[in-house]
């Protein structure tokens, strides 16, 4: 067979299967992102607390998450939980747990820095105008915080999507795994399949992440102006 081997992508439903595989990673990223946003906002508010002990505990949590590679956290949950809790956590569940644990810390720090970047006179002027605390948050603080948060939030989402590529290493059947299956299945009929399959996966990740990073940098510029 004297051909480039690109047709491996169009045999059967191969191309569709790859996208389905990527969707598995994306789903995990989106679920974790949603959970970490909710938990992160709560953590961010806790982190602005005046108590030194609470701030210290939050700091330790953040540093642990930042220092250990995400893959190490995945291993701890995936292998550790199986042994200690006697639970057979599936790769997907472990991944969601780890990415939420990680995302919450990052999100908390973002929320914290957005909250403290709002100058005190914003609160004071609000009080001066006779607004209640709830009104100040609703009309003054939260709108400004969201504007400042949005670029880094989207940035975190792209990082989350990129990091979900690691889950193949704890045995989740996602895009890389599907790619390997396709390569193995066409080992004899199409020996150069690996080049095309991995090339395609590379481009697929790019197509997913590129729009997000463009939006993020656009928003960042818009806020600066």
């Amino acid at each position: 067979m004297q051909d480039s081997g690109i047709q491996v992508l169009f045999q059967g439903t191969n191309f569709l299967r790859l996208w389905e595989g990527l969707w598995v990673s994306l789903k995990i990223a989106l679920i974790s992102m949603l959970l970490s946003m909710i938990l992160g906002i709560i953590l961010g508010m806790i982190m602005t607390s005046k108590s030194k002990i609470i701030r210290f505990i939050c700091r330790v949590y953040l540093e642990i998450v930042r220092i250990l590679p995400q893959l190490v956290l995945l291993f701890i949950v995936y292998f550790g939980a199986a042994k200690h809790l006697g639970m057979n956590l599936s790769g997907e569940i472990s991944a969601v747990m780890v990415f939420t644990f990680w995302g919450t810390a990052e999100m908390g720090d973002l929320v914290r820095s957005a909250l403290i970047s709002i100058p005190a006179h914003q609160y004071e002027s609000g009080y001066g105008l006779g607004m209640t605390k709830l009104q100040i948050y609703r009309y003054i603080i939260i709108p400004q915080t969201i504007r400042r948060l949005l670029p880094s939030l989207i940035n975190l989402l792209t990082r989350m999507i990129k990091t979900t590529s690691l889950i193949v290493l704890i045995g989740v059947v996602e895009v890389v795994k599907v790619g390997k299956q396709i390569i193995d299945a066409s080992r004899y009929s199409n020996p150069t399949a690996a080049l095309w399959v991995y090339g395609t996966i590379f481009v697929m990740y790019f197509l997913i992440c590129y729009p997000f990073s463009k939006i993020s940098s656009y928003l960042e510029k818009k806020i600066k102006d």
Partner: protein
Amino acid sequence: MDIEFIRSYYPMYVTAAKMTLGIAFFGIILSLIIGLVCSMIKKMNIPVLKTIVNIYIELSRNTPLLIQLFFLYFGLPKMGIVLSSRTCATLGLAFLGGSYMSEAFRTGIDNVASIQTESALSLGFTRWQVFVHIIMPQAIATSIPVLCANIIFLIKETSVFSAVALADLMYVAKDLIGIHYKTDEALFMLVISYLIILLPISLIFGWLERRMRYAGFGNTSTVPGN
């Protein structure tokens, strides 16, 4: 926790850590060079090269290292380019890091006021001299916090090297879990190894960053790479 087990198997972790750090070192040096060259090309506005650099940066920033490594290690041999695991890992790290470093340098360069360039040009410096003697020293000072964050990020990214058949820390841990079923000990040593590698670096960088801020250089609004 089986202390005896830890004692007899920790040398495996030491070997793995040394190998990873060696690759990380070369990868980071390469990525700094790539970053410097890319930011220079962007600053000097060289027509065709600039487009190539932009494409490279977008490609590298928007794809995961694992996929880049898979492509290098399993894909390229089909085109007749066979690379060893070590070369793949180093190149992959440099490919990923180059764009992050380039962005860090670029922020630094953008922060140098244009009056500096204009003054130097009016004093008769050539464009090259302006870049090397006026812009770069100031730019590097400003971008140090981001550079440090990128270095830590890249060291953390080395944890995926086991995917291209390198016997790194993750590989050793997985191996020990598989062979001896000593999950606790293996994971414990894994965490300790990463802490020993990353904690001192992160503390030193934190200190360095505070020093730079003292000097009035630090730009607190910069976002770390990872």
